[in-house]
């Protein structure tokens, strides 16, 4: 349970202080991507394809360039050639080459002295298209006779005879599935579908960039990872990474969608053409929905064998996932390992194909691949529990992975908290509340690997005994606060005496983005190591002053203390005293740690949801919602709860409302928030949370990472609750009112 009600040895970890960036964010002072401006700045606009698939015959920008105040136009002809692999994909997505591959694909960009003028100029850029046949649905893209949208995307893994839109094939497993199914009392097989959804961050992509004719430049951008932005922009534009300095702004949500580039090279290229004047580019909401990172859509076959006592004897999946018009973006490599990660099943077979279609290049979205996989597997587990009249938590406890279980994807789990989340869900009062008519309860568990990644952190002790920490992972949801807590705990100083800054690419070694639930884990781990180095140095300074061995000094409560035989011989020397004298005792005191962080610990959660379905309209109301998840250690419990609640809300949206709707013309039909409807305040109940704490042995304070898992269980839990309320099982998300109503009617 969270530290609020448990005594631990920690002074600060587990408390809920105000976040350091809170004041700026409640007063409007915090600067997000679109809030930067520079003297002489131009504004850019992008011309986008209205066609799902079309050959670009001609681009004529002469009318646009003739307008007073229009300073530059860029097309693909302005970008270097000869790129391959993912670098070519990024370049192709930044600006279409021979073909536009989806509705909204960028074709040209223009810079002018005002945003309105740039938009006017964009409308004057004439593009001649030859429209080609398109395909947007994952199953249709694999069907015989489907138009092959790009030649040669299949890699070595794709078996002979598959449609040319299949880019990748994957399989793995263990045990004898045929024998497993033979040993089962019931074997059930179903197909499930999920539509693409968007991360839906409220802040559209935005940046200001400047680049001179020497190919050196600067950029201010909202991103989860500015080193990724630097590397990707450099490769798309053919410039040196070190020549580009990228500073992250505050970020208005990302959820994985801001870990890559979409339009960021364009203002750099425009700036260079416009004599080095800075250029600002801000996407509109419809550009965000049409052209940036939705998640994959999926079509998934699942087969399970179960005994009447609930023992699962074997499982098998075949996933088809579409991640847009570019290979490598559909998360089959995550979805398959996540599919059965919550279970310990003797025989499993996993297969998946990645399919390309005329849709935007998918990006990561919170636990990429895991929500779809959970929807398929957890839905079928629930169907079989209902058929055999078994309690869904009991079945998960019986078959669930434990410490030392060999995971479904290979590695052995060290210390994990799945069983603890199931026990806590079972014991929670919500699980015992009697249900009324038209009400149903759903249960599901979820998993995410968590992540370590390249991490570089520095820490400097100030002359007054305060500490400044420089991290490279943008703070999206309170990580400055949690890293500040860990550093203050380690140094033994007040939380308020630590300032955590997110710094630019020139200030640290390469950092991976804030993704995969790694920021508090990995930057936190490196920050603690940096603090320990500073402590060692401060102990040396004190020892030198006292004329004793550094080994005979110990650090506690923010001060060096003589220890062992010297204990009590000198008064403690505080960090403030050491800091004030550092100039004359050997110079600045700092710590620095860089690592590709290992030791991350798997994350498991279990959700319980109650819904009521209106039998007249098919509308589902979420009555109550419970998230139970293992945090390892909750450094700042309020922000841990926030991650649980936010993940659940996104999962509820995916389950009930959200979907990409493509017309027969291949155009996105709902590219505004009115029609792509994310949950609003009146759609949701309070979201109850239980923080389970099974500390991760791979982190100095036990952190696991808490961001991803929460989006995973809601998809199957809600569909299962609807089945409980209506007797009708929805196997294709979202569970929109018309679909639920039709299913109720069909059941009779």
């Amino acid at each position, binding site marked *: 349970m969270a530290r609020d009600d448990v005594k631990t040895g920690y002074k600060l970890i587990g408390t809920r202080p105000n976040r350091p960036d809170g*004041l700026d964010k409640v007063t409007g002072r915090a600067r997000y991507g679109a809030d930067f401006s520079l003297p002489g700045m131009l504004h850019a606009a992008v011309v986008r394809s209205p066609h799902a698939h079309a050959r670009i015959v001609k681009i004529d920008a002469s009318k646009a360039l003739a307008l007073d105040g229009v300073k530059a136009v860029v097309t693909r002809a302005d970008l270097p050639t000869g790129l391959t692999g993912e670098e070519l994909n990024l370049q192709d997505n930044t600006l279409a080459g021979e073909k536009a591959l989806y509705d909204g694909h960028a074709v040209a960009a223009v810079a002018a002295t005002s945003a*309105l003028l740039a938009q006017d100029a964009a409308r004057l850029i004439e593009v001649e298209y030859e429209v080609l046949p398109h395909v947007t649905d994952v199953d249709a893209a694999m069907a015989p006779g489907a138009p092959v949208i790009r030649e040669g995307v299949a890699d070595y893994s794709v078996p002979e005879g598959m449609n040319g839109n299949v880019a990748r094939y994957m399989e793995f497993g263990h045990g004898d599935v045929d024998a497993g199914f033979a040993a089962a009392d019931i074997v059930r097989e179903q197909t499930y579908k999920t539509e693409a959804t968007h991360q839906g961050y*409220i802040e559209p992509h935005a940046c200001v960039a400047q680049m001179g004719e020497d190919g050196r430049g600067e950029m201010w951008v909202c991103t989860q990872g500015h080193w990724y932005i630097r590397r990707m922009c450099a490769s798309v534009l053919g410039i040196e990474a070190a020549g580009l300095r990228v500073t992250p702004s505050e970020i*208005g*949500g990302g959820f994985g969608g801001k870990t890559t580039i979409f339009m960021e090279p364009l203002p750099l290229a425009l700036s260079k053409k416009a004599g080095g004047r800075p250029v600002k580019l801000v996407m509109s909401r419809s550009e965000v929905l049409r052209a940036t990172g939705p998640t994959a859509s999926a079509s998934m076959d699942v087969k399970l064998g179960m005994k009447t006592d609930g023992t699962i004897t074997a499982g098998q999946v075949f996933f088809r996932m579409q991640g847009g018009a570019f290979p490598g973006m559909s998360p089959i490599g995550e979805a398959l390992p996540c599919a059965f990660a919550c279970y310990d099943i003797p025989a499993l077979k996993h297969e998946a194909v990645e399919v390309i279609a005329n849709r935007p290049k998918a990006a990561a979205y919170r636990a990429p691949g895991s929500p779809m996989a959970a929807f398929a597997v957890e839905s079928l587990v629930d169907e079989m529990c209902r058929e055999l009249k078994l309690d869904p938590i009991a079945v998960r406890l019986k078959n669930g992975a434990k410490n030392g279980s060999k995971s479904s994807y290979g590695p052995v789990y060290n210390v994990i908290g799945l069983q603890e989340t199931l026990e806590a869900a079972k014991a929670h009062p919500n699980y015992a509340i009697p249900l009324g008519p038209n009400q149903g309860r759903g249960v599901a568990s979820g998993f995410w690997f968590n992540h370590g990644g390249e991490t570089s952190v520095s820490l400097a002790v100030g002359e007054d005994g305060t500490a400044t920490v420089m991290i490279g992972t943008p703070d999206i949801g309170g990580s400055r606060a949690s890293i500040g807590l860990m550093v203050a705990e380690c140094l033994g100083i007040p939380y308020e005496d630590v300032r955590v800054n997110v710094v630019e690419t020139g200030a640290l070694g390469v950092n991976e983005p804030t993704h995969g639930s790694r920021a508090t884990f990995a930057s936190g781990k490196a920050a603690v190591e940096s603090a320990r180095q500073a402590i060692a140095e401060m102990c040396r300074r004190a020892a030198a002053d006292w004329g004793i061995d550094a080994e005979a000094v110990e650090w506690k409560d923010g001060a060096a203390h003589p220890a062992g035989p010297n204990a009590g011989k000198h008064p403690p020397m505080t960090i403030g005293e050491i800091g004030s004298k550092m100039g004359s005792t050997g110079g600045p005191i700092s710590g620095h740690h860089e690592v590709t962080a290992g030791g991350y610990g798997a994350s498991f959660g279990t959700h319980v949801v109650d819904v009521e379905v209106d039998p007249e309209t098919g509308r589902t109301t979420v009555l109550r919602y419970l998230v139970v998840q293992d945090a390892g250690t909750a450094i700042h419990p309020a922000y841990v709860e*926030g991650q649980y609640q936010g993940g659940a809300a996104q999962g509820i949206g995916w389950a009930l409302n959200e979907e990409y709707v493509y017309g027969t013309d291949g155009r996105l039909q709902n590219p505004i928030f009115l029609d792509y409807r*994310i949950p*609003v*305040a009146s759609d949701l109940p309070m979201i109850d949370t239980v923080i389970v704490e099974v500390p991760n042995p791979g982190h100095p304070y036990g952190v696991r990472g808490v961001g991803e898992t929460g989006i995973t269980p809601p998809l199957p839990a809600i569909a299962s609750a609807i089945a409980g309320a209506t007797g009708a099982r929805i196997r294709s998300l979202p569970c929109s009112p018309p679909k639920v109503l039709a299913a109720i009617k069909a059941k009779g």
Partner: protein
Amino acid sequence: MSKIHVTTTVNGDPVEFLADPRETLLDALRNHLDLTGTKEGCGTGDCGACSVTVDGTLVCSCLMLAAEANGKRVETIEGMAGEELHPLQRKFIEHAALQCGFCTPGILVAAKALLERNPDPTDTEIRYWLAGNLCRCTGYDKIIRAVQDAAAEMRGAA
């Protein structure tokens, strides 16, 4: 296109600027007056990130033309705190009612307008009042609690 001369009051200060007839109040606040605390999440009236009050009425500033603000009294997030934070601002920090914080200015402006009309709202009234303010990060739970706590404090102080 000729520009329109607009004279208005923003957070109590007299201001004037030249607006393109197509520019919204949101554009004017952000680009002409350097008040970037008001955010654009959609530009179509669907997200509430651009919420301000005009003559005391809560509006989406992306749906109002800059020229329409002539002679009006506009209040934005930048005018919410005096020497001290408004109780809503303080409670949002204390309750961790923001993660990325991008929706926060709009939600604070909208919640303040609610409490001025209804100092003792139910949870459901808060949820429906804020239904036009999208937050993708929090699931709204802590936002509702922060508004309730601020309302209770303001009632006690009154």
